[in-house]
């Protein structure tokens, strides 16, 4: 039987968050909500990496996954910014054509 460790608990929570994000990404009709759902997926993936880095104290955690997650966070905000810019621009154009 695997022991209950913080890594196990939060790792499973991360997978649940990824699942929720996946659901949202598939089902959301609204552009902004779909983006938030994708961000949830990213956080879920980050959880799995951080959980992979965890070591039973007093051992220090593996720093490599931490660095990877930081990279992932920056990549995700870049993607989010692009998506938001397209959403804004589309909204302006669609508002113009409606008038």
């Amino acid at each position: 039987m695997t022991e209950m460790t913080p890594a196990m608990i939060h790792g499973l929570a991360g997978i649940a968050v990824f699942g929720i994000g996946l659901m949202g990404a598939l089902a959301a009709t609204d552009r902004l909500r779909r983006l938030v759902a994708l961000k949830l997926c990213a956080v879920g993936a980050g959880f799995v990496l951080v959980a992979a880095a965890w070591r039973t104290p007093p051992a220090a955690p593996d720093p490599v996954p931490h660095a990877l997650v930081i990279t992932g966070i920056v990549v995700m905000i870049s993607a989010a910014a692009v998506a938001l810019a397209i959403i804004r621009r589309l909204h302006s154009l669609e508002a113009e054509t409606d008038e």
Partner: protein
Amino acid sequence: MSDNLPDPMILVILLPLFGTVAAFVLPRAAPVIGLATLAAMTAAVVALGRAVAQAGAVSLPLAGWGAPLGIELRADGLALAMLALTALIGIAVGFGALGTFARARTSAGDGGQPTSRQRAFFWPLCLLLLTGMNGVYLGADLFNLYVMIEVISLAAVGLTVLGGTVTALRAGLAYMYASLLGALMMLLGVGFIYLQAGRLDFEGLAGVQPTPALSAAFALIFVGLALKAALFPLHFWLPDAHANATAPASALLSALVVKAGLYILLRLAEAGPFPGETLLKLMGILGTGAVIWGGVQALRADRLKLMVAWSTVAQIGLIFIALARGGADGLSDSWRAATLLILAHALAKAAMFLAAGRIKEVIGHDRIREFDRSPVRPTLAQFAFALAAVSLIGLPPSLGFIGKWSLMDGAMRAGNWHWVAVTMIATLLSVAYFSRALTGFLRFDRVRAPVTEHRGWALADAPPFMLALLAIGLGLAAAPILVILEFGQPFGVSP
């Protein structure tokens, strides 16, 4: 190699990066910077090619640490062929873009961007795309590949929405979301691999025992990359995105970007316990679906660019069938057929999109039904389109023919006759949809006004024509290409 110059492997990646920066900071000089960068990058590819021809597979431990602590770059024949292809297409599309963005067109009232703006932003994005593509070819670390495909996808989204119209923006956003979901699946897969193996370099994957976590990782990465490579039924984003982008952007997207996902799958198959026979069978079935669905949709498409985009879906399916054709033998031989098809498709499709762009520019529309009513004939572009179609259909001696032949030959030898049948169906369908456009080019009887032969040839006609000639002509050079692919023996010694 001289001791003072950095290794060509890192130059191949960083040169287009410096080009991106320069073209972004100095928008007015962007075309000059872009072409100069392409020339320098090609020189680096040639230098790398010399090294690979001498030493077989070469690798470069960045920052001097080596895997698994650091990141290594690795080049062999397969990577070299893709790098050369990318440089070639980059140059052709670059010259094509000179023509496309030269005229100060007044854009339609649907929010389209002025041409000068398109030109200023095309070059940084194009060079950035090449940075990412080259990084993918040389990457040997899973997380690094994730970052690279994100570089590619942001640049690709930027190119998709370059036209600035509502349709392009909608298609771009759908593409962005699909691509992001694919990348995040890959990221989670990377997390699972780290959990199981504790390292991310390809060499480290070789010895890992298959476990549920590893299966989950490969499943996630496969689905994510299939989404990026637009494998049926995950192709939903592709037709709109590729059909609504400006011509040079479409050429890059269709010829190169979808290949990034395919290439990573190939590399994974080379490195680790992936894919199993079941997954190969699944790839074949999905590929068959893509061939049929893509073919039918291409038959129904009313616009030329949409038809070409749907044909990409079908051709991607064919490449997956090429991977699946060996059955129990895995990819030990199939990778050659798949690579040949990748090369053939890239050349022909880039030619085709550039030609389609020229046709639309000259005639003023790209509705397939009305081609035969136009009094204007963009002859050279139509000829290039036809040549590219010949290669995609797979008539000898084109490169497409060699690829398809290699596919069917291997399938027959493995006794998998059903893949031969599917390839035949694919060929018939492609004949059917391409002939819709080609007959339109050839009929003159429905034109009411006197036919104008053409409005003089432009520089922009040359790139699609050259690419189409290569798509045909390289079929004659298939033997040297296969020799290049064998450098460094990807997938081990051939059986």
